[in-house]
């Protein structure tokens, strides 16, 4: 499948992926994340069940302290 991840086109062998699996494949190991799929917020307790499909627009924001 092809998705847009953080404004960039990316291809994956799998036809669907859960958010947990996507984070693992991309090696996103950060704890403090905000994830949006097609503009909708996906909460942490849905990461194991939420399925990303071909054409989805996924935004992963990694939050760090400082300001």
């Amino acid at each position, binding site marked *: 499948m092809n998705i847009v991840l*953080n*404004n960039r086109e990316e291809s994956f062998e799998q036809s669907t992926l859960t958010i947990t699996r996507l984070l693992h494949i991309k090696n996103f190991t950060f704890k*403090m*994340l*905000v994830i*949006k799929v097609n*503009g*909708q*917020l996906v*909460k942490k307790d849905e990461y194991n069940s939420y399925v990303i499909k071909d054409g989805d627009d996924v*935004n992963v*924001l*990694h*939050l*760090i*302290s*400082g*300001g």
Partner: protein
Amino acid sequence: MTFEEIRERLKNFTAGIAGAGGLGSNCAVALARVGIGKLIIADFDIVSESNLNRQYYFRDQVGMKKVEALKENILRINPDVEIEIHDIKLNQSNLSTIYKECHVLVEAFDLAEMKKMLIETCISELPDKPVVVGLGMAGWGDSNSIHLRKSENIYICGDEKSEISEINPPLAPRVAMVANLQANTVLEILIK
């Protein structure tokens, strides 16, 4: 556009500033200098000596409430700005009420969990409001890593990688770079 035209346009707009530390104080001052109409500023903290390495406060303001000290400093620069202050800790229940009327909201917290709270609250409760987030500005040097990235109505300003720590503290130059990148992004959103 001439400066007069820019100021004439900006006076019709309100910007929200969530947090009055290094990002919020510097960003608010930049917006006040160019003539933003109104600022809504919230913070619960007081000015301490350790803030003076990056935040827009003066030594004789140590001990004052940040929102009151910042209002005083902004009015000394531009008395035409309307300033609404809230000496309060922002949370998911008061945030959307305080910033409802803003045309754009600047996220200027220090802690990652507060940034997360603001972004999630805005996505669910203020979905159409432009939110300008400051993310990653610790240390010094590495100027070219500071960037602007847009994700729908969320604008991310910073290097997105440098987290503050004991040995990588936030310092005036990079903090003010990100604060002014946020202010510049606010102008870009408002002067369309």
